C-alpha cells in the first residue's frame, strides 16, 4: 500500500489545491458516527504534506452548510460513517448516485443527512454535478449518544486513511489536466 501511495505521489502536482476538499463527517459523542472524522484526522497525521496541500474540513453533521463547503470545488472526498447490513468496519466507496439507498425521508433542521443534502445541492446548483465526488463510507454498528467507537471500526481507520491518500493522489495527478471548478 505504501508503495502504491509513493508511486502516486511522484506523479502528483505540488502546491495548494483550494479546489479539492477532504471532508470528515461525524459526531464524536455518537460512537461509530465519529469514524469519518477520525479517519480524516488519522490521514492528516500520517500524510501531513498531502493534507497541507488541499482543503480539509471536519464537520459534526452533514447539514446544509455542507453545500457551502462544496462551492468552488472540482473534487471532494467525503468520509462518513454509515449504517448498512455489512460487517462493522467494512469500507465502502460510493458514487453520489448510490446514496439514494441511504436516504431518509425524515428531515429536520438538524437531520439533513449526507444523501438529502447532496440531493438538495444538485437541485439548487446543478453545476455540482460536475464536482468529482468520492464518498468513503465506514460501516458502523453503534451510534447511540455516549457510545464508544467500536474496536472493529477503530481498527480500519488506518486503512481508510490510506484510501483517502490514494484517492487524493489520483485527483492531484488529474490536476495536470485541469477541469474548471464549480462556481
Amino acid at each position: 500500500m505504501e508503495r502504491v501511495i509513493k508511486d502516486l505521489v511522484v506523479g502528483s502536482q505540488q502546491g495548494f489545491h483550494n479546489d479539492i476538499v477532504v471532508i470528515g463527517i461525524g459526531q464524536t459523542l455518537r460512537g461509530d458516527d465519529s469514524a469519518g472524522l477520525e479517519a480524516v484526522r488519522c490521514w492528516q497525521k500520517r500524510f501531513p504534506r498531502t493534507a497541507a496541500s488541499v482543503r480539509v474540513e471536519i464537520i459534526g453533521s452533514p447539514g446544509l452548510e455542507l453545500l457551502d463547503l462544496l462551492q468552488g470545488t472540482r473534487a471532494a472526498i467525503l468520509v462518513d460513517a454509515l449504517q448498512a447490513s455489512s460487517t462493522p468496519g467494512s469500507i465502502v466507496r460510493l458514487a453520489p448516485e448510490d446514496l439514494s439507498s441511504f436516504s431518509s425521508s425524515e428531515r429536520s433542521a438538524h437531520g439533513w443527512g449526507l444523501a438529502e443534502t447532496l440531493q438538495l445541492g444538485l437541485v439548487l446548483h446543478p453545476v455540482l454535478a460536475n464536482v468529482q465526488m468520492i464518498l468513503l463510507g465506514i460501516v458502523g454498528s453503534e451510534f447511540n449518544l455516549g457510545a464508544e467507537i467500536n474496536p472493529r471500526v477503530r481498527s480500519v481507520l488506518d486503512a481508510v486513511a490510506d484510501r483517502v491518500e490514494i484517492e487524493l493522489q489520483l485527483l492531484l495527478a488529474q490536476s495536470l489536466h485541469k477541469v474548471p471548478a464549480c462556481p
Partner: protein
Amino acid sequence: MRTIEVPALARVEGEGGLYIGMQDDRVVEVRLDIYEPPRFFEGFLVGRYFQEVPDITARICGICPVAYQMSSIAALENALGVEVDPQVYSLRRLMYCAEYIESHALHIYLLQAPDLLGQPSALDLAAIAPEVVKNALHMKKIGNEVLKAIGGRSVHPVNACVGGWHRWPDVDAFRSLLPELKWGLESALETVRWSVTLPFPELEVEYELVALHHDSEYGVMHGEIWSSGGTRIPVADYETRYIEEHVRRSNALHGHTVDGGAYLVGPLARLNLNHAQLFPEAQRSLHENRIKLPILNPYKGLIARAVELVHFFEEAILLVGAYNPSGPAHADFKLKACEGTGASEAPRGLLYHRYKIDEKGLVRFAKITPPTAQNLPRIEADLFAMAPRLVKMDQETATLTAEHLVRAYDPCISCATHFLKLKIEEALPARTDLHGKSD
C-alpha cells in the same frame, strides 16, 4: 377500534408520538408525547463553575444556542449584580439577530412552506422553486456568518461570558457583512409579501399570548413578561405565574399558568404584543401587506416570522454599522453566593432560567424552562380542537394536517432522531378494576 399509525413527522426537532382516542365518535384524548432530553442539562450544571454555564447551555440546541447561552448569562448577571457596558449589550442583541435570521429563514422556507405549497419536503419545494430555496439558504447563511463573526463559529458560539465577551470580535469582519445584510433585508421584505399570499388553513384560537416586552426595544433580552390577559410581571416573578409539571407519558415538562391554562409563546405572541417596537421597515411591511393584528391562527406564525425577519435584518444592519468597540470586553465583578433569574426570547418563544451559586461560584441549582415545554399543552389543545376533523379524513390527509399544525409551532425538541406516530383509536368503555378504581 380504529388505529392509524403513520411514521415520520419530518421537519421538527426531536421525536414524539401523537395519540388521538375516540369514544362514540367523540374525541376523548389527544396527546403529543415528547421524549426530550434537555432537562438533563440542569443536572449537568450542578457543581460546575458559573463561567462554564454559558458554553454548556449553548449546547442544548443547535438552532437556538444564543438564547440558551444568553438567558443563562442574564440570570447569572442578575444574581451577581453585574452591570454590562452598552457595547456589550448591543453585541448581544446582534448575536440574537443572527440566530433569529438563521432560525426563521429555515423554518419559513424549509420546514413549513412545503406544507402550505403541497410539497412533501424542502427537496421537492426546491425542485419546483429553486430560487426561493436558494434565497432561504442564503439568508440562513448570512445569519451563520454574523454568528461566526461574534462567537467564533456558527453553531454553539464560544465568545460570550458572564460580564460580557472574552474578546471583542474583529471590526473588519463585521463591515464586510453589511452588503449581505442589506441584501437580506430586501429578501426578508419579499418574504413578507410572499407570506401573505400563502393558502393558510382556517383556524382561530383564543390564545393567552405571553412574551417579554420592553417599551424601548423589540422584546428579546430585557423587559417584563406580558400576557395578552393583562398580566405584567417582572422576570423574577415568572414562577409565581407560570409553572411546569411532569406529565407521566412524556420526558418533556408541560408548562401552564398557575390557573391551569395553556398559553402560547413564540413569534405570534411577540408580534401581537410587541409590534409597536418593531423597526420602521418591519412596521411598514405590516402596513403595506395589510397584515391585521392580532393574528390568532397558529399556521400564520409564518407571517409573524417573516415580519420578524425584516426587523432583525434591520436591527443587524444598524448594530453592525455602529460597532466600534473600545474599553474592556467584559466587566469585573465580585463573586458571592447568590441566586438570580433571567429570560430572553428564543426564536420559538420565552426561555426562562434560574440559578443558585455558592461563594466559590459553583452552581448549586439550575432551572431551565424552554419555549417548547410551555407550548406543548397549547399544541395539544389545538390538536384537540382539530381532532373531529382529523378522524373524518383519510389516513394520509389526517397525518399531513396534524403534522402541519405541529410544525407550524416549530417545536424544538432535541437534536436526536425525530418522528411522529399518529395513532387514532376508539377507546374501549372504561374498565373497573378489582379495587373499584376506573382506568
